[in-house]
């Protein structure tokens, strides 16, 4: 097992390198560059060229990439080209709010999806099943920004019970209750989407298991139906559930671009938008790198979890 993990980590290094090269190319292929964003009637062309040279943007791409890579290997994310702050500090500021928002949304989403997915599988083709799958369809289909704006209109504008944006009330006491109130709407928006996807995964995973012979054996032993479902079936369905969670862990760090933007949530998602519109290469690359590392780490973690819940899975 230990050898397996080491091997997977070693394999991840070239993959990660490949990802950063592709990311770097795509980011640079996008029209414009950080200096173009500074153009104004008061700036001369010569000054812009000077700025370009200062930022190293006049060098060939492979040289720029090499500089970036050497810095990253020293854990130096560089400085933002728009705010001139260290990228590492900017990320550190943003990661907390994003993890809070996404973690909570993921938990709420799973708390809805897992029980509902199971019940809708055990009561296949019942009214409850139709309501659950219909709800899931709604959750997946409705655009985030639409649901977000709708909720803001109802709860913030009309009813005035919840704040519409940010993480704290300006001039407020910055207490837990205040942040909690700010969390409600974005968490609902994200949880609806997450639950919508997961209900369908859990339901189909569970349905597959409900037809298995060993559940008939369990019933033939005289076990209660609740034990048959919650112990014998669910333990097997965990494999599906772990896969689903594994796919969503990277979201914890990548944030939700659109939802964070709508609710002005000071997280990674918003930073992504800002750095894209400012062509802030170092920041964009740092966000991409973190996302890539998280995807690889989550995949590895998922594979390790498989061997924990399923004795048939062995790595060596």
């Amino acid at each position, binding site marked *: 097992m230990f050898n397996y993990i080491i091997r997977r980590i070693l394999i991840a290094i070239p993959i990660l390198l490949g990802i950063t090269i592709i990311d770097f190319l795509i980011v640079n292929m996008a029209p414009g560059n950080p200096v173009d964003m500074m153009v104004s009637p008061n700036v001369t062309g010569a000054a812009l060229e000077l700025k370009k040279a200062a930022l190293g943007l006049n060098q060939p791409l492979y040289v720029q990439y090499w500089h970036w890579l050497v810095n990253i290997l020293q854990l130096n994310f560089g400085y933002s080209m728009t705010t001139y702050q260290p990228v590492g500090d900017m990320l550190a500021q943003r990661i907390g709010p994003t993890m809070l928002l996404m973690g909570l949304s993921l938990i709420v989403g799973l708390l809805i999806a897992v029980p509902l997915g199971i019940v809708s599988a055990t009561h296949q083709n019942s009214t409850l099943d139709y309501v659950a799958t219909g709800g899931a369809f709604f959750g997946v289909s409705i655009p985030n920004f639409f649901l977000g704006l709708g909720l803001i209109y109802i709860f913030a504008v009309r009813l005035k019970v919840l704040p519409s944006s940010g993480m704290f009330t300006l001039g407020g006491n910055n207490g837990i209750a205040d942040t909690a109130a700010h969390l409600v709407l974005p968490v609902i928006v994200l949880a609806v989407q997450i639950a919508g996807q997961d209900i369908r995964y859990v339901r189909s995973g569970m349905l597959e298991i409900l037809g298995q012979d060993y559940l008939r*054996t369990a019933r033939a032993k*005289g*076990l209660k139906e609740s034990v048959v479902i919650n112990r*014998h079936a669910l333990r097997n369905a965990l494999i599906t559930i772990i896969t689903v969670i594994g796919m969503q862990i990277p979201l914890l760090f990548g944030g939700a671009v659109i939802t964070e933007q709508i609710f002005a949530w000071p997280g990674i998602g918003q930073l992504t938008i800002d750095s894209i519109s400012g062509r802030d290469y170092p920041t964009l690359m740092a966000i991409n790198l973190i996302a890539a590392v998280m995807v690889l780490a989550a995949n590895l973690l998922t594979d390790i979890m498989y061997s924990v819940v399923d004795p048939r899975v062995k790595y060596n």
Partner: protein
Amino acid sequence: MGYMLSVRNLQTAFHTDAGEIVSVEDVSFDLNPGETLGIVGESGCGKSVTSLSIIRLLGKSGRISKGEIQFENQDLAKMNEKEMRKIRGGRISMIFQEPMTSLNPVFTIGYQMQETICLHLQMGKKESRAYAIEMLKKVGIPRAESVIDNYPHELSGGMRQRVMIAMALSCKPKLLIADEPTTALDVTIQAQILELMKKLRKESGTSIMLITHDLGVVAEMADRIIVMYAGQVIESADVYTLFDHPAHPYTIGLMNSIPTVDLDDSKRLESITGTVPSMYQKIRGCRFCNRCKYVTERCRNEAPPLTQQGEGHLARCFFAGNLPQKKEA
């Protein structure tokens, strides 16, 4: 008469999109304590549905629509789910066809065995573990002390079926329903499992309902046999009578399609042409009429009743007893 199990006019129906479909009809038989009853027939003739009706594991769509199942003076057909649970795994237990998939892959052998033992015998953890090991030894599993902590995938098919048998017999059932217990196993393992079942039957006095399509297996094991076809009992007799004087053309056909050692190599093995009619087809006359060599106009229009052919020998054919017997090879 103190039959242990007495099934009377059992009818089982399944709810489908095409309405309710009767799968098993007018099935009656009795079973004495310690006796082995073989139920034979080809796939889809209602053998398994009959056995699942007795243990009431028909699933959501199936139900017993008529008849009664008297088991130790209780009617299982009318029992509620809670009472039924006490009987399942306790006084009636079941082993299934597929040992590869009948055990839960994520729990150890010990866990799955102890689950039943704790439930029905009110034993504690330690006690039930010792008992489970004892049962595993009884079914001939070597190194039972370590096998108990194995997962199903670490055992071979034959071993798993032994585990299933150990599990099924652990609560000393009065009735063991074995649904094709050896079909998925290779011949040597099959012989071992049958030998084991015989030995355990002798020791425990458990009655066995053996469901199979293998006539060799019933000849070996059963005291009495019922032959089913298209959801009905078409012949029932003790094992000697059935093999020596089969009365129904279907049974005769089955007997003739067994290869024998002295069979002439140049001759083709006899077979029954056609297939079992599906449950969706409505048949007015005899259900076997489309495949029967001796079919008459009467057979197509009128359903034959089960008639007495001799002591304890019933057959569902107008011409039972007047048909040519086994062809000599």
